[in-house]
């Protein structure tokens, strides 16, 4: 399903893609069968700032739920990103090596982080938030004045 939920705070508009699930920290997960594509939400990328470097665990790395799967270094902060599911990293977005700003430009599309082979997706996905629930998280965080550049 295409489309976005949106919330505007001051001059900023944050989009939440409808076709995936979210960890509260802002990492999304979209099922592609047994393979789950993961990336950053629009709110997380905007509130983190321009991304200078993105480093993702290499293909073959086993990850547990919540374990660090990637780090991003932005102009403002260094962010450790926990995996929204358990499994094994199958593929890392090759574009991030030379153009990490792709995450800022297209967080739900070309700026994906990795594809993970899930070990127990039916269980892990129950821990994640629906787009509607994550939108409420974004509203709360944006309302609390999480800084955006």
């Amino acid at each position, binding site marked *: 399903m295409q489309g976005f939920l949106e919330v505007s705070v001051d001059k900023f508009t944050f989009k939440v893609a409808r076709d995936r699930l979210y960890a509260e920290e802002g990492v999304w997960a979209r099922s592609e069968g047994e393979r789950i594509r993961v990336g950053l939400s629009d709110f997380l990328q905007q509130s983190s700032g*321009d991304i*200078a*470097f993105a480093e993702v665990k290499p293909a073959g790395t086993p990850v547990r739920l919540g374990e660090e799967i990637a780090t991003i270094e932005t*102009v403002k902060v260094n962010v450790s990103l926990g995996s929204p599911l358990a499994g094994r990293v199958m593929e890392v977005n090759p574009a991030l090596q030379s153009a990490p*700003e792709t995450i*800022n430009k297209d967080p739900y599309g070309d700026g994906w982080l990795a594809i993970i082979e899930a070990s127990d997706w039916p269980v892990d996905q129950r821990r994640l938030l629906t787009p509607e629930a994550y939108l409420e998280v974004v509203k709360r965080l944006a309302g609390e004045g999480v800084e955006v550049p």
Partner: protein
Amino acid sequence: MSRAKPKVVIVPCSGIGKPYGTVSREAAYIATEELSPDKTQLVPLSLLVLGDSQTRAAVAQNVAVTIDGCKLACSTKMVKESGGTIAKEIAVLDVFRQHRDLKPLGIAELNPEGLKLARVIAEEIARQVDDLTAGVPDSPNPRKAVRKHA
């Protein structure tokens, strides 16, 4: 009759309160005051935004190097909107990506790494300025210089 030699205008961004904006201005100071004082002219973005006639004329009559601290690229946009010709657009973040050990921190005062990053950018500007002004005689039309590099 002698004419003034054309200068390259250096336009840093006005990202007050942000380290990368501070790096852009520090780089502009080093380039215009230390490395290429005779070939450059510092243009404050704020005056350009306010429409100051002398500032707009400087941008319109000379080629520019812009330095932007973030993706909004205010200095580049403003020079273009003012009818200026940009010889080189520099994004501080792009230069930082090539020098990961030079992470800028601090606002009122940059950390040593930020100052080094500013110098790296300033040296790149100086090289660009040397290229732009090499062999250019005193000229009533300084934009001739940039046509070779466009």
